[in-house]
């Protein structure tokens, strides 16, 4: 069972990209942005250059991305 998520009111949706201070090590642009992505190994929170897509930081995100399971709030759950 997942946590309830209301239907968004806006007709279209976009991923929020948060500006981050700094310079891209790849192209030198000052256009770093932080946002979540889904890739080969699952969800990651990244800081990337909007100009050349160079990764500045990539850390594992929530295992199911935007979905939270109610069971994950149970302490000490397990098998047998």
């Amino acid at each position, binding site marked *: 069972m997942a946590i309830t998520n209301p*239907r968004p009111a806006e007709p279209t949706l976009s991923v929020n990209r948060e500006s981050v201070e700094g310079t891209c090590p790849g192209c030198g642009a000052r256009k770093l942005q932080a946002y979540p992505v889904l890739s080969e190994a699952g969800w990651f929170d990244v800081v990337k250059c909007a100009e050349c897509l160079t990764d500045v930081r990539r850390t594992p995100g929530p295992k199911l991305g935007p979905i939270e399971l109610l069971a994950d709030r149970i302490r000490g759950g397990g098998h047998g």
Partner: protein
Amino acid sequence: MSTTLLRDLTDEQFLERYDCDRFTASVLANRLRYSAQHVTTGLLHRAFSPIIALCYDFAACVCAPPEQDYAMSAVTNGLSIFLGTMSAGVRVAVEEFGPENLVPGDLLICNDVYRMGNHYNDVCFIRPVFHDGKIAGFIALRAHQLDVGGIAPGGFSAAKHNIYEDGISISPRLLYHAGEPVRETFSLIFDNVRMAELMLPDFHTMQSCCALGEELIQEIIERYGIEAYLGSLRYACDASAESMRQAFASMPDGDYSASGSLDADGVDDSEEYTVALTLRKRGERLEADFSGSSRQARTCINAGALDAKTAVGVGLKMLLSPESEFTSGTFRDIDLVIPPGSMVSALPPDGAVFCYYEVSALINTVLCEALGSVLGEAALGGDFGAAYVHNAYGVGPDGAPWMCSAMAGGEHGPRGGSSAGDGDGFSCSYIFNLMSPSSESLEADFPLRIMRREFLPDTAGPGAHRGGAAVAKDVLYTRPGEHQTIPLRFRHASGVGVRGGGDGALGGVWVFGRDGAPTSGPETLLPTDDSGYAAAVAVAGTLDPVTRAPRVDGEFFYYGRDPGWATEAGATWRYVTNGGGGWGDPLERDPQRVLRDVRDEYVTLAAAKRDFGVVITGDPHADPEGLVLDEAATEKARAARR
């Protein structure tokens, strides 16, 4: 990551990276695919469920052990829309259950769409492969089950409002423990689904097929050693990643955008649901951003984020790197940016996910369009773009229920034009890669007759290589029944033209003789010309309000205005698919090929002149070999159009 290509590694470098020589790595990568393929071959030959036995609605893969983050290293041929979700699904299910809790002979089961992608019917079976008491990998088999409960028998309905109406959600748990069935899991499932008697032997078969897969992998390990085996898992993924990386590198940098939509959800037709996609390509990396897409639908025509990932991965591989093997490495240089709560990342409980495959097909269309101006010769016209799934069910005279799911609607149709030629075909939409069940099998298993499957004239997208012509399929039901139809792509062309090619025509869905009609005799074969539609009930399409024939600027007929289409014996359902998109300028098409199209009644005389600038005289129906190409008039007509 080294920029040295795999083929340029020295033998020493290759051995250091993959713990085996390159010949062994190649052999083992092939053996892994062979092992996965054997798992599904066994299921195909022994399954009782028609959608498995007739349609190939399954896939299997080999995933790496936890130490390699469950990377998917080998997959089966066939159904591709499972493949991008299975690696993540294996990771999520095993981690939630706990790899330390697994023992030899276990079989995990899970179908939760938000954990694993796809829809609840697509149940995933996961068997750990043990070697010397340690998990060396996993065999995962995903197969569509006939029913998983919920409000619609078989599940194929676009009208389900939330996960509770959708069916039973199975969180990761054991179906078999140490080779023995876990009764409480079987009971949990079979106490909540229809047709369980048919599914029970299939569940036993899944177990035995996965056990076979484990044995085959253990043979590989015994023969070649655990280190070479583990190295070959890494090699297979690296090879896929390298192929995609090279494909990206060969494309010009840029931002490429396109959008498309599903017609309406199951509530009403007030809201179209748009997939907007921007591909940002820089060097060897690509970002696929779905920002601007519609919020999740009110009924289950949504997809989950893993489905969007699959569609992008499969679509890009098909367009850019068709010769490579599909593994989780295919995604290595792709980041997906997916707004939560959108139709490509719906959230529970109200963002129900069932028709994810329609979103997958739509994403594929959007990819064809976005890259149509980028790929040059490699561009591909859009296909008929959907599944047009039909679900029919009822009760026979002896009280036995029957149910025909996803096999007797408009599931097969034409493809788009390409550099290789015209796009004709009677196959699943690009993204699905399922089999077309035989008419004989369907007629033996269900109270129906396949009366027609044929191409329709003037429905192909014009082009130097035209798209495929739309397919008309008439299915006559010999008993009363309830029907669900899910045609979601009739407002706008799905067969998008590329490189100057035209779009394919729009189709529609009709019921003839809804209140009863003969079930045998010559009158059961219905005419296909436009005059016949007025006598039918128009179920879906953009149609002329009077004649009810397809008309691109006509009235939209909403499929969901009747939540369940009840019909009497003798009713005939007609599905006309969309046409495929054209490739290249139709004025460049060889006039002799247009002449052949007219002779074969793909193109009428009028359309030959209107769409291709080719003037032909004669009677294609009465005297097809007597047609004459007027070269002078053709030259003049084309010159006037250029």
